């Protein structure tokens, strides 16, 4: 806790999400703290359960969502700061057996890692 705000942990400076450490209601004040101890303020837009992710910046549709400095998948629509980031707006780039081979649900260059 930081005063009457709710703490959210961000791991790397480049991450676009932070993990909330309490159940969050819409319009709750959030303090985002990173590993280096830097803090910033954020207003929640959604109800976000304990342990879930809040967007700390705008993430455009098709962009990778970063946590641990790595990609969790891509945004299926543009996500605003303070929004709950979860299965309703992220798509995995793995195990998508429901789409044709070679086709991805969203444009992505996962192969570039190999």
């Amino acid at each position, binding site marked *: 806790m930081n005063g009457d705000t709710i703490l959210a*942990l961000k*791991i790397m400076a480049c991450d676009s999400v932070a*993990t909330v*450490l309490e159940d969050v209601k819409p319009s709750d004040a959030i303090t985002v703290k990173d590993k280096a101890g830097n803090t910033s303020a954020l207003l929640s837009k959604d109800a976000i*359960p*304990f*342990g*879930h*992710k809040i967007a700390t910046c705008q993430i455009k549709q098709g962009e990778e969502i970063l*946590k*641990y400095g*790595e*990609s*969790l*998948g891509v945004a299926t629509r543009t996500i605003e700061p303070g929004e709950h*980031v*979860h*299965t309703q707006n*992220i*798509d*995995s*780039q*793995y*195990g*998508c*057996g*429901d789409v044709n081979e070679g086709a991805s649900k969203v444009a992505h260059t996962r192969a570039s*890692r*190999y």
Partner: protein
Amino acid sequence: MSSNYTWYGYRRQNGQIGSRNIVAIIPATVCVNEIAQAIVYNTQMSRALQHHCGCCQLMPDLKLVTDTLANLGCHPNVGAALVISLGCEGSNADEIVARIAATGRPVEKIVMQELGGTSATIHAGIDIVQKMAIAISSQQRVEAGLEDLIMGIKCGSSDTTSGLSSNMVIGQMSDRIVDACGTVLFGETTEFMGAEHILARRARTPEVGRRIYEIVDVMEKRAMAVGVDMRNGQPTPGNIKGGLSTIEEKSLGAINKSGSRIIEGVLDYPDLVPDKGLWIKDSPGFEPEILTGLAAGGAQGIVFSTGRGAPQGFPIVPVLKICGNPRTYSNLSHDMDVDAGQIILGNKSIEQVTDETMTIFMRVLSGELTKSEAINYNRTMDIHTHGPKI
């Protein structure tokens, strides 16, 4: 690098040191599980390695089952073993017996179809295990160090706290053990998806790196062959409820368990760890199967990280549960051994909880019961095979 950590275990003829002294009852096939369990109910120091394999499988899987059971019978925690054969199974009971005997352990085989049926075989098995239990029961523990240890690591029923706290603790334990010339074994190939590039960068050789990409690719193709999105199989509905949105997120948290040291190689599911250092066991995330893979590798103790609260134990290996979620710890304190939730609450550092967990782990290796052992969570295991049962 030396370390101050010592533990006390049972020295075996081949130099291994066990954290437990168990008579392993090994059914060569699913059909004799009931016999194995009945013998355990009637004897001390015995555990059944029950599974659902050993017959009506294709040759590569039958060999895998034989290899896995043989390596479990040669586990450092096993003082003696009884192999139970139905008499017509597809796995090779004689090979299991021969490989256990080669380690110098007392081992015998009984065959249900030759002994006159289920009750006669239970009777014969009780007599044999009674004799074995008495024979091994006087063995004393000797001093051992981290260089004698293979630590198995696993996370299950994860949520977002696992990657932030309990897995970080296991990662530090892993680094400390590897630095002290010990051995660490991790698996869950499914939970490398999205993090395989990070693991591959830590591979000892380019070939090991390629193998890491390969096992992930094979695991993903098996999932995709079903023709649905893998989500809900992995991550599980519980993972998703706990805030893990994609397999990438689950994997990036899961690999924190492996610490930061070089990865020596990738082992097939039944394989024994061949040398010191950090190794990957190609295995699924499914608890009863990966714990078997870690045990077959020779892990004398398994440290198991959880966020939502996995209850697992294993028949012949103590499983120490470390919980990353403070809410879960207070709710399930009878299943959780270590409270790592203090880390995300800001009350303790990762280093502090690592120190505490190392100390507890040494005590457990020396004989202190884990929560799951003390309530007999010791019957659930299975073997990970690839083809169909037909």
